[in-house]
């Protein structure tokens, strides 16, 4: 059983389009995250949700909107895609404690043409 899954794995789209990435975890964790990894492998947190409540919202353009229908799902919708949005997006989950590890999904490689 996959612990943290993301769909799609690859996403190629044109500038200006709107796209969504879905994430699901079956670990029973309270907290879920979205990270962006750029071409230099730098990993930056975008959002964090705890039991469907947004608790971290880093400096991310308003075109990015996370949605958590329940604590097992955290989706990412991106409006008006730009070239600079091209990256690998990772979903992760963890129990709600400072000393617990995070479990990462396999990533979604977004390419904006």
């Amino acid at each position: 059983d996959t612990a943290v899954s993301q769909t799609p794995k690859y996403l190629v789209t044109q500038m200006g389009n709107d796209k969504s990435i879905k994430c699901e975890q079956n670990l029973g964790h309270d907290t879920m995250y979205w990270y962006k990894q750029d071409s230099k492998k730098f990993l930056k947190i975008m959002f964090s949700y705890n039991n469907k409540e947004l608790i971290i919202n880093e400096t991310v353009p308003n075109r990015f909107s996370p949605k958590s229908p329940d604590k097992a799902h955290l989706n990412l919708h991106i409006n008006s895609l730009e070239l600079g949005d091209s990256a690998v997006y990772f979903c992760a989950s963890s129990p709600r404690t400072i000393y617990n590890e995070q479990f990462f999904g396999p990533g979604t490689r977004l390419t904006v043409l």
Partner: protein
Amino acid sequence: AQSVTQLDSQVPVFEEAPVELRCNYSSSVSVYLFWYVQYPNQGLQLLLKYLSGSTLVKGINGFEAEFNKSQTSFHLRKPSVHISDTAEYFCAVSDQLGRGTYKYIFGTGTRLKVLA
């Protein structure tokens, strides 16, 4: 706020040689440190973590790390690397934000390339 610094962006090493990947963190009263590995085209997975207690932490795949409070370091080591260890390695610290929330701060990563 916490921060971590990985000084080496790339580390080439021959197979069966030892390796050390360096990580320094900003000082804090209490600190929780992690090392993650990312194999090509995969997500990150935990190698090991330091929460408290023994300063030498053993992880998976023969890796270990030593927590050094005086030098604010948490270097990752392996006595003998394999080709399969070729990957990106990330050091991370857990940063308390208040109100029971926290976030991870990741280093910029070190690419370990094991040469035959």
